[in-house]
């Protein structure tokens, strides 16, 4: 378990016809403690997905570096995208097993499937699943590789409220079983307060660090909507610029 340092000096998209150079991220420096659950909150289109793609190594065209603090070893990253991104021609189980790095113990998969209520659906093809189930499969896949860093990109958007709450609870449950660093992107402040140890607010593009808040509500109280609501009101009245942004 190590802390993770993210330093993005500049991420810009080259000029295209009809538009100039687009600076997506500028001077963003984050430090994530080992096992910390961090929510990145920012307005839609502020470049949060871009940031996650940089961290995941999907985009290497930027100035800066991303490294684990002590060892400098490459991170093992689990990524839960906004859409489930399952291979439709492979079964649920195959989708998960394919993601496992070679030599990794596959045993936790059975447990994860069990917790997520997917044991019965292992041999199904993803097109036959509901969106909520597909999201849970994607969650299992991201957890199954036993990541040092888990990236989550608004994974519960477009789920109905009860389903989203249920999957959020499952997420916290499996995360507490095997704590690791989580970077969770959302534009929903209530969701962020429910989940995070720490909130980081990001500015509209060019994206940079705006503000951060530790969430001091005990985990056992997070399910109470009043607690979350009180925290949220206190936060917004203390920082009007945040409410302007969201």
């Amino acid at each position, binding site marked *: 378990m190590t802390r993770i340092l993210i330093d993005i000096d500049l991420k810009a998209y080259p000029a295209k016809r009809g538009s100039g150079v687009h600076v997506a991220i500028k001077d963003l420096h984050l430090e994530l403690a080992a096992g910390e659950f961090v929510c990145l909150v920012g307005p839609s289109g502020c470049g949060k997905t871009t940031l996650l*793609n940089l961290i*995941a*190594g*999907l985009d290497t065209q930027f100035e800066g570096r991303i490294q684990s603090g002590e060892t400098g070893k490459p991170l093992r*990253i*689990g*990524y839960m*995208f906004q*859409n489930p*991104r399952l*291979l*439709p*021609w*492979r079964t649920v189980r195959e989708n998960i097993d*394919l*993601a496992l*790095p070679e030599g990794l113990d596959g045993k936790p998969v059975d447990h994860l499937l069990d917790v997520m209520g997917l044991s019965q659906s292992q041999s199904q*093809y993803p*097109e*036959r699943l509901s969106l909520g189930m597909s999201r849970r499969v994607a969650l299992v*896949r991201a957890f199954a*590789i036993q990541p040092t860093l888990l990236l989550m990109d608004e994974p519960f958007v477009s789920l109905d409220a009860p389903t989203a709450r249920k999957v959020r609870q499952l997420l916290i449950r499996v995360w507490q079983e095997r704590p690791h660093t989580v970077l969770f992107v959302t534009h929903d402040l209530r969701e962020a307060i429910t989940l995070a140890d720490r909130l980081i607010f990001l500015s509209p593009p060019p994206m940079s660090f705006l503000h951060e808040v530790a969430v001091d509500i005990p985990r056992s109280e997070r399910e109470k909507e009043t607690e979350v609501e009180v925290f949220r009101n206190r936060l917004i009245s203390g920082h009007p610029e945040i409410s302007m942004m969201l």
Partner: protein
Amino acid sequence: MRSDFFPPIVSAFLFLAIWGGLAFLLDSPALPAPSVVFQVLYQETLSGQLPYHLGITLARLLVSFVLAMSLGSLMGIFLGQHEKLDRFFDNWLVIFLNIPALVTIILCYVWFGLSELAAIAAVVVNKLPNVVVTVREGARALDRDLMEMAQAFQFKRWKTLRHVVWPQLYPYLIGAARTGIALIWKIILVVELLGRNNGMGYQLHLFFQMFNVAGILAYTIAFVTVIQLIEAVVLKPLDRHAKRWRR
């Protein structure tokens, strides 16, 4: 009309009955009765003539099919992935798509002589642009989301090809293969007629010169049956396999 009153067997018998009736009424060598044709079919099979020529044609079909499919797939995947080259070669494809089959065949024989090589080349050149266009469509439509997923989870090259790319191309390849067979077996007869001294096309030409309509029909029946068998036994199951995961 309710279709369950007309199962395939009934419709086949009706077809034979109309054919037989017409042949009886016309009473002309231009339309021999079914019984005559099937007798010729039987004799030609026994004498080994039919299996020999059919075998030759099927061998040519197989070789040119494999060549056209593999070359066409490689070119299609390549063009589908490289936008600039694709735009550059697009006109070439359009030209090749529109050259009449007969022109390619004649040119191949003129340039390469009346050889086996020329025959195969003519078929391949006719089929190739079709495969390229179909497979290119598939390669263009590769799902970026899934490619990113594979990259994020650090799939190795082979794993990505086998589990992410191949299943996306497969339906296009099967589509190209099915239309390919249908196209090639028609062209190959003309190729044989014009420049080979064996194969179905050559035999049909011979029958034509001798005004042997029964022979022509007998060979046609044999050929159509074999092609239908290939379609039903090989291509359709492959197609069904490719769609098994769909809702």
